C-alpha cells in the first residue's frame, strides 16, 4: 500500500440539542449548520467542495427518502458528487475519507441530521433488531441497555454509584456547553435518590431524545493550508461491527471498539481528550475501559450524549467536539467514538492530532 494522503478537519458546527426542533423540516434543520461551516472556511456552498456525504435514518421521523430532501439545502446546481449512508454521519465521514485517500476529492462536506422527536425512539429502534425473533417482541433499546447494565452490576464491574458519577460529570461538563440539552450541578447521592426508571437504569442514565444536525468540512492537509485554515489532523479512523446476537457478545466489554481503536492507531500516543458516544451511563464506562483511557484523559468534556443526543449526527459531533478542543489548544491529541446498533454493536474510532 502506498502512503495515504493526510486528512485535515477544518470546520465543524452543530445545532443545539433540542427536545423538539418544532416546525423545522430537514432542509431547515440542515441549512444553518451548512451555512456555519461554509462561513468558517469562506466557501459559498457545496459547489466549493469536491464531495458531499450525509448520514440519516428515515425511520426516525417516519418519512422515506429524508436525505433526498436534504439535497435541497446544498445548492447542488450544477450537480455535485454526493452520497449518503443510512447510518450516523460519522460513517459518512468515513466514506468521505476514502474518497480523499483515493484522490477523487481534495475536500468534503459531511453532515448528519435527524428529528427523533416525532416518533417513540426506543420503539422505533426496536425494529433495528432481528426481524424474526426480537423485533416482533418490540424489545426497546432502553431495555436492552438495562440488561447490559445489570450484567455489569452483577459481575461487580460497576456500581450504581459509578453510573451516577458518569451522569454527574456529564451534567457538570455540559454547563459550559451552550448546545447541551441537560446540564447542571448535581451529586451522586441526589442521583441515587431518584427512583429507577427501567431498573437498574434511572432516567438520568439514559440520553435524552434530541433533534438537530451537525456538519463538518474536511480536506487534504494541502487544501487546508491553501484555505489558510487552522486544522486538525485526522490521523486515523476505523470501525468494526460485532454479532447481532446480544447474548453471544460479552456485553460488559466492547471488543469492536478496541479493535477499531487499534486499527485507527490510537495507541501510538497519549490521549488528552475523548468524546465517546455512550447513550447510557454504564456504556461510557465500558467504552473508557475498552479504550484503556486513564486519569490523563478528559472524557466527554462536552457532557457527551447524556447531555443531548442528535441521533445520526452524534457520532460526527463527537469528532467535531474533539476537533474544537484541539483547535482551541486545549488538547494535543484526542479520540472520538461513534456507535450504532443495540448495546454498542458497531463502533467507530477516530484519532485526531494537532497539526
Amino acid at each position: 500500500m502506498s502512503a495515504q494522503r493526510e486528512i485535515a478537519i477544518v470546520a465543524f458546527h452543530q445545532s443545539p440539542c433540542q427536545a423538539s426542533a418544532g416546525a423545522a423540516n430537514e432542509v431547515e434543520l440542515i441549512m444553518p449548520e451548512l451555512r456555519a461551516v461554509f462561513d468558517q472556511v469562506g466557501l459559498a456552498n457545496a459547489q466549493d467542495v469536491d464531495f458531499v456525504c450525509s448520514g440519516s435514518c428515515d425511520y426516525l421521523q417516519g418519512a422515506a427518502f429524508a436525505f433526498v430532501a436534504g439535497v435541497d439545502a446544498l445548492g447542488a446546481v450544477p450537480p455535485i458528487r454526493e452520497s449518503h449512508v443510512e447510518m450516523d454521519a460519522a460513517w459518512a465521514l468515513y466514506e468521505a475519507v476514502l474518497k480523499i485517500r483515493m484522490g477523487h476529492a481534495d475536500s468534503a462536506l459531511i453532515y448528519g441530521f435527524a428529528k427523533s422527536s416525532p416518533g417513540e425512539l426506543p420503539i422505533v429502534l426496536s425494529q433495528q433488531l432481528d426481524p424474526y425473533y426480537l423485533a416482533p417482541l418490540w424489545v426497546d433499546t432502553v431495555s436492552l441497555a438495562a440488561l447490559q447494565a445489570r450484567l455489569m452490576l452483577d459481575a461487580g464491574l460497576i456500581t450504581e454509584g459509578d453510573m451516577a458519577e458518569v451522569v454527574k460529570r456529564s451534567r457538570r461538563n455540559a454547563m459550559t456547553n451552550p448546545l447541551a440539552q441537560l446540564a447542571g450541578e448535581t451529586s451522586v447521592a441526589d442521583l441515587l435518590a431518584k427512583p429507577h426508571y427501567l431498573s437498574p437504569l434511572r432516567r438520568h442514565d439514559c440520553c435524552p431524545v434530541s433533534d438537530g444536525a451537525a456538519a463538518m468540512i474536511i480536506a487534504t492537509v494541502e487544501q487546508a493550508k491553501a484555505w489558510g485554515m487552522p486544522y486538525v489532523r485526522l490521523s486515523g479512523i476505523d470501525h468494526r461491527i460485532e454479532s447481532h446476537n446480544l447474548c453471544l457478545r460479552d456485553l460488559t466489554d466492547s471488543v469492536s471498539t478496541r479493535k477499531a481503536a487499534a486499527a485507527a492507531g490510537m495507541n501510538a500516543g497519549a490521549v488528552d481528550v475523548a468524546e465517546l458516544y455512550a447513550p447510557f451511563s454504564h456504556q461510557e464506562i465500558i467504552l473508557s475501559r475498552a479504550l484503556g483511557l486513564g486519569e490523563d484523559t478528559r472524557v466527554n468534556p462536552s457532557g457527551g450524549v447524556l447531555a443531548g443526543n442528535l441521533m445520526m449526527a452524534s457520532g460526527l459531533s463527537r469528532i467535531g467536539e474533539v476537533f474544537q478542543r484541539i483547535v482551541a489548544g486545549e488538547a494535543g491529541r484526542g479520540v472520538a467514538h461513534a456507535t450504532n446498533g443495540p448495546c454498542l454493536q458497531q463502533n467507530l474510532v477516530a484519532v485526531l492530532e494537532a497539526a
Partner: protein
Amino acid sequence: MTDVDVLSEAFELGFTYTRSTGPVMGRFLTALRDKRIEGIRASDGRVIVPPMEYDPETAAALDEFVEVGQEGEVMSWCWVSEPRRAHPLQQPFAWAMIKLDGADVAMIHCIAATDEAALHTGARVKVRWADEPRGHISDIACFELAGVAP
C-alpha cells in the same frame, strides 16, 4: 423569518410485512407451534437458542438442531415499570436474558412477575405458552418464575 403556527398532526406509518422465514427460523417456529423449543449447534459446539442461520464466528451455515428445555436461568433482567403500548405485556414486567436448560447461549424474552422484588439474576423461569400457538416468537407468551428455589 416570520414564524407561523406550527402545523402538527398524528400520523401512523404502518404496514403488515409478510416475512418468509427460510429453513432455520421456519423449523424453530414450527417447533414453537408444537410447544417445543429447538436450538442450533454452532461451529464451536455451543447450542444457540433461538437458532441462528449462520455461525457468528465462521459464518458457516448451521443446520444441526438440538431440542432444549422449557425452563432456564435468568442471566440478566430489567424491570419495565411502565410498559409501552407496543410491548407484549401491559402489566409491569421484566425483559430478561434466559439461558434455557440444554442451551449454551441465552435468549431475550419477557417474564411476567408480580413485582420487581420477585426477580433476581439466577432465578429459574419456565415458558408460559400462548393459548393458540401459531408459529411465531410470541408463541412463548412469556416466561414465569418456575417456583423452584435456585
